[in-house]
């Protein structure tokens, strides 16, 4: 069961959570998972979250800004239960979908704060490209321990990496595009030591993935590596100085797998940050 609350308060949301908890289910949380999903990203965010809560039991707070609507907060409060193995016990994950209307959309930090689970890490998945100057981003950065983005969702590459690099000093950042390149980075690493002489990297794939792969090679090898990029939905071909690199085996991870991996990471990733700096 879920409860829909219109023009509600956070106290009412908390009450609804208490009411929704099944007495037979155990609330188990490893984090608070905040998702900033503007309306255009909402469906994609929900798809990724489906199944994820089973792997990372958490309190998920999905924030959808609706700045053009009349001030207020609408909420959908749901407690999802999952059976534990073959036993009769269940565990529960909490999902709170908040539509932040009017001025409330500009104050997500103060809205999220009372709903955080004490002492557990807070991850924020930011869908789409952030407005780098916005107070929303600034507020959430101050609340969360880790910001998870997917730079392949951004339109302003490679310039946006410069803005991201500024952010890295204030919050640990994960990039799903970077995570997606991991299989390819392992393949390139296996080319050692021949690859240390690489002059050009050709990538057929998303621009973000291509820029990050090139940035990574430049920063790790400490030399100039030219990037030749041809766009595609996923990375399909990689060549170093004209020699095609054998594709990694097995199926590519799903968006849920990629996000799930990032939710297991704590602290800053200096290799990624160097790749971002060298990607521009």
């Amino acid at each position, binding site marked *: 069961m879920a409860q829909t609350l219109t023009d509600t308060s956070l106290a009412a949301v908390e009450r609804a959570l208490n009411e929704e908890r099944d007495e037979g289910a155990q609330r*188990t949380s*490893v984090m608070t998972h905040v998702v900033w999903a503007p309306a255009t990203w909402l469906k994609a965010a929900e798809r990724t979250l489906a199944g994820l809560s089973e792997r990372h039991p958490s309190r998920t707070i999905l924030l959808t800004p609706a700045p053009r609507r009349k001030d207020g907060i609408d909420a959908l409060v749901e407690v999802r239960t999952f059976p*534990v193995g073959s036993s009769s016990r269940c565990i529960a994950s909490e999902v709170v979908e908040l539509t932040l209307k009017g001025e409330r959309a500009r104050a997500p930090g103060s809205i999220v704060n009372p709903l955080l689970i004490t002492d557990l890490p807070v991850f924020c998945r930011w869908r789409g490209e952030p407005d780098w100057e916005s107070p929303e981003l600034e507020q959430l950065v101050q609340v969360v321990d880790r910001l998870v983005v997917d730079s392949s969702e951004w339109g302003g590459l490679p310039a946006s990496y410069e803005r991201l690099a500024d952010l890295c000093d204030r919050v640990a950042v994960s990039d799903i595009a970077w995570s997606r390149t991991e299989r390819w980075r*392992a393949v390139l*690493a296996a080319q050692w030591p021949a690859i240390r002489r690489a002059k050009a990297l050709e990538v057929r794939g998303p621009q973000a993935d291509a820029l990050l792969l090139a940035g990574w090679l430049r920063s*790790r090898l400490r030399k100039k590596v030219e990037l030749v990029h041809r766009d595609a939905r996923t990375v399909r071909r990689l060549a170093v100085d004209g020699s095609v690199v054998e594709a990694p085996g097995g199926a590519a991870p799903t968006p849920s797998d990629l996000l799930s991996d990032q939710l297991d990471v704590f602290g800053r990733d200096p290799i990624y940050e160097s790749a971002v700096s060298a990607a521009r």
Partner: protein
Amino acid sequence: MSTAAENPLLEGLKLRRTPEPCALVIFGASGDLTSRKLFPALYSLAVRRLLPERFGVIGVARTEQTTRQWAAAMKAAVKEHGRDDFDESVWSNLADGLRYVATDFADDEGQDAVVRELYELDEERGTEGNRVYYLAVPPAAFETIVNELGERRDSTRGWTRLIVEKPFGHDRASANGLNAVLSEHFGEHEVFRIDHYLGKETVQNMLALRFANGIFEPIWNRQFIDHVQITVAESIGVEGRAGFYESAGAIRDIFQNHLLQLVALTAMEPPIDFTADSVRNEKVKVLRSLHTPGPKSVVRGQYGPGLVEGEEVPGYREEESVDGESMTDTFVAAKLYVDNWRWADTPFYVRAGKRLARRETTIAIQFQRAPHPPFAEIAGDGLRPNVLLIHVQPDEGVSLAIGAKVPGQGMSIRTVHMDFVYGGTFRTGLPEAYERLILDAMLGDATLFTRADEVDEQWALVDTIVAAWNRDRPVFPNYEAGTWGPRSADELVQRDGRSWRRH
């Protein structure tokens, strides 16, 4: 493969723990263990791409059958016992590297055929002369196989690892004999003695719980802990293992290995790191300092007919292939002491048995009572001492029993449990113990395997107990199936003013 120090591109990559190319040879390939545990584990490793890319399996057993027939049987076993959905492409990749040799283990020609198959795998699958031999065979066959392997060992190519299933010996002398045979042909670093309990997540979590949490270690000693109870209870009977069980009993089947390993993990000092020798050095110190205060501190039992889960079950002596006058123990309980500064005078009550009320493996750390509860006497009627309960199986997890006020007027205190259910918090699917252990052996990581000196110490204690047992003849059966063992097991604890945990 180069290291991150040599190759800057490796730094930060989450490289999977994938072993080097190798061939796995399973002796006892047509047996129950292979079909119920080993192949489902191999398949699960294949699903997660944790097996080496260049890999092959040679099954060796007496059963006459072709590779095709064996592969079909293993496929059926994976479908029946595997924890993952069956994927034909994963299976066919694994099945391509399967070979089967039908032979008696003592037959030289048969063993030569195994060697030929290994060389063929090296050629066809690139396994590079690396061998993992898995002895999933009855103990009587160990020596023959080890000698055959030793004589045919090609020390110029690749590495060799030997996985040995329990039971490792029947007593201290026979275990030392087996160790001598092993050491004739293999180094200790090449021998992996399996105790599958050590592959269980919760058992490893015991180390995380103790050594990754600052709150437990300061109170993990005789000053704060009243006693420890370890229970390894099975609700099943001998289930077709009567031949083995008649000569082993609960003391050799469970107590000598699983139970004493759980005691060692509970009582050990913090290792300096998590390497094989550091962990095993600490465990062996505990095993060496274990003693039981005397014959009255050990209780044995044998089940008679009774009710298990509402169903009538026969007594042990009525089980198929069991001697009608059998004196084999199906239950053992003991009070043990660990003679060191941390644990002096703190009893470890342990028990293991078959046909008990339910299947359960738990480690219960019972803390001392609060020295002076400032409440009216009646307030704490429902209050029991704090207990940290580690559930090893089923429902792996940890719970802490604490006193809490019952809501309402007045002050009434009851015991409540704070639960951490493993499968509920990390819902990635717990790997089966055999997955972890096979992978570790392929990687050469012996941390979760038992070292020769541990086995020796375990048998030393068991020999002492059995020597005392040989001097009298108990009245068997002495407990009903479906109960928690003989009355004398309760008395063992009650004599000290304590009781077994309520279930």
